[in-house]
C-alpha cells in the first residue's frame, strides 16, 4: 500500500472511530452533573471510560495529524517549511498520545 492510500484509509478509519467515541463522549459529558475533582476522577477510573478515553486520544490525534498534514500540503508553498511542519505535527501527536495514556494510567493507579 502506498503512503497516499494508507493516509486516505487511516483518515477514514479514525473518522469512524471518532464518530462513535465523540457521541459517547458527548453523552458522558452531559451526564456528569457537577465537575468536582472527585467526580471527574472517579469517572476516568471506571475501566470502560478509561479505555474509551484512551482510544479517543489515539484516534483523534491520528485524525488530527492526518488532517493537518493535508491542510499544510495544500496551503504552505515552501517545500522545506511544509516538510518541517508535517514532521512537527506528527511528532507532537505521537508525544501527546503517549503522554495522555500515561496520565490516564496515573489517574487510575495513583488517585
Amino acid at each position, binding site marked *: 500500500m*502506498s*503512503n*497516499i492510500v494508507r493516509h486516505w484509509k487511516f483518515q*477514514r478509519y479514525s*473518522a*469512524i472511530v*471518532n*464518530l462513535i467515541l*465523540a457521541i459517547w463522549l*458527548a453523552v458522558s459529558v*452531559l451526564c456528569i*452533573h457537577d*465537575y468536582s*475533582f472527585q467526580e*471527574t*476522577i472517579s469517572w*476516568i477510573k471506571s475501566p470502560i471510560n478509561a479505555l474509551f*478515553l484512551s482510544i479517543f*486520544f489515539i484516534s*483523534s*490525534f491520528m485524525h*488530527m495529524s492526518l*488532517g*493537518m498534514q493535508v*491542510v499544510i*500540503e*495544500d*496551503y504552505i*508553498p515552501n517545500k522545506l517549511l511544509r516538510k518541517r511542519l508535517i514532521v512537527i505535527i506528527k511528532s507532537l501527536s505521537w508525544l*501527546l498520545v503517549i*503522554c*495522555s495514556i500515561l*496520565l*490516564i494510567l*496515573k*489517574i487510575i493507579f495513583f*488517585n
Partner: protein
Amino acid sequence: MNDDQSYKNRPLSPHLQIYKPQITSILSISHRLAGIFLSLGLLAMFVFVLLLAMGQNYYEMWQYFSNSLVGELILMGWVVALFFHMFNGVRHLFWDYGLGLSLTVSKWSGLLVCGATIVISIFIGIISLGLVL
C-alpha cells in the same frame, strides 16, 4: 506508477478567492476550519487530563477557565465545531462510497448538515444552561 514522485510534484490547491462562494464550497472550507479549531480543542482536552492528573489545585485552574464567560463561549464553540465536522464528515464518507455526489443532493445534504448542527447545538446549549442554573 511512482507514487512518491507524484506526491512530491503535487500541485497546490487553487486559492479560495478563485471560487464563487456556494454552499458546497463554503461547507468545504468550513470543514477544514472546524478541523483546525478542533485540533485546539483536542489539545485543551489533553490539558484537562493533565491538570486533573496533577491534582486538585491544578484542576481548579481548569474550572476557573471553564466557568468564566470566555471559557464557556470557547467550549460551546468546540461543541458546535465538533458536531458540524462530524455531520459533514459523515457526508464525506457517503461521497467516498459514491453516494450523493450529484449537485442537487450535495446542496441538500449540505443544508441538512447545517440544520442538524444548529438543532443539536441548541439542544446541548439548553441542557448545559440547565446544569448551570
